[in-house]
């Protein structure tokens, strides 16, 4: 066996784990008899140990942060999704709020029918509700999507939603009559936000009434 070619070739095969059993035997027999090759083999193994013992080099302290800063900006949608995942309570509250608002809006928009809480003794003329002069309404009155003319007396609160309180009778025949009286609060709601506020107040009132 020629030292400088075949043996060295086998040494490298050995180091790469490519050597066959027979070749390994040939190599070890040769190494026993040849000092030069033994030294060569030893030096190779030592070199590998040296390389492996080379100083460990660490990245600069703020390396990751710098890389993250330099990345192109991500899509907004993903950013929001992650934010929602990070703040589940706020997300739940926001979703609840959105549903509540949309519910109220739809109620506000859909109901354009005239609604009156009490029908007895009241005169309904188109979209106008009239409390006749000699009538006393006992209790609260709610009128929705209609106007209200009070000539009589109401013993309770009046709530007007999306409508107006008309001070003078339409036909003009009651001009001389005194304007009716309300023995309670008169609430007038005709803005969406007021309607929302009214709904919330109602909600709280019903909650605390329990």
């Amino acid at each position, binding site marked *: 066996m020629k030292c400088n070619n075949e043996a*060295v070739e086998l040494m*490298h095969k050995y*180091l*790469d784990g*490519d050597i066959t059993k027979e070749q390994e035997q040939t190599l070890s027999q040769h190494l026993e008899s040849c000092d030069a090759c033994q030294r*060569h083999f030893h*030096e*190779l193994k*030592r*070199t*590998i140990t*040296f*390389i*492996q*013992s*080379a*100083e*460990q*080099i*660490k*990245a*600069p302290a703020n*390396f*990751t942060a*710098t*890389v*993250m800063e*330099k*990345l*192109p900006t*991500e*899509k907004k*949608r*993903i950013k929001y999704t*992650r934010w929602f995942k990070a703040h589940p309570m706020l997300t739940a509250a926001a979703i609840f709020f959105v549903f509540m608002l949309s519910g109220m809006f739809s109620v506000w928009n859909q109901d354009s029918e005239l609604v009156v809480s009490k029908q007895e003794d009241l005169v309904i003329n188109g979209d106008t509700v009239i409390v006749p002069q000699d009538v006393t309404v006992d209790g609260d009155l709610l009128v929705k999507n209609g106007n209200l003319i009070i000539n009589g007396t109401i013993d309770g609160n009046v709530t007007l939603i999306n409508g107006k309180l008309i001070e003078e009778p339409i036909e003009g025949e009651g001009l001389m009559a005194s304007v009716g009286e309300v023995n309670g609060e008169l609430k007038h709601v005709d803005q969406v936000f007021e309607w929302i506020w009214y709904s919330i107040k109602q909600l709280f009132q019903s909650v605390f009434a329990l």
Partner: protein
Amino acid sequence: MDEMIRERIKQVKKGDQSAFEDVVSFFQNKIYQHCYRMLGNAHEAEDIAQEAFIRAYVNIHSFDDRRKFSTWLYRIATNLTIDRIRKRKPDHYLDAEVKGTEGLNMYSQLADNGRLPEEEVEGLELQRYIQQEIIQLPPKYRSIIMLRYIEEFSLQEISEILDIPLGTVKTRIHRGREALRKKLRHV
């Protein structure tokens, strides 16, 4: 750890940028070290290592999930370092080969003046000496020696990282080992 990286890569592919932070912090030392050994100076190493991670992020969709992410990342980093070495102006760098002398460069000339091979170098100093010797190897041997013995990739993986045939990897690792053996035999 591989499972964690796999999971993060999935998230990054879906567009979650923050998942990439774990990937960077897991590989930062390995990639930086690889770049440092390829380039031989801290400034360029940081520059190229950062560039490697940014490229990996931007091109994440071309990464095949069935393969090893580390192999892919090292491939990007290695290609960038080799590009950088090619673009260098030879005169400005110590490890550029001196004209008319094959395999000889400024480092070996400095070494001749400053330190005797027989000089005893221990601990950190020995490590620095080895580092210097590794840097003297031509890039095509250096990258393979480092990937094999410092990053501990298999020869097959190295062939994938460098996109060269397995036979070529073997030839180069033999030559690299022999070259280093000659340089380190007196230590």
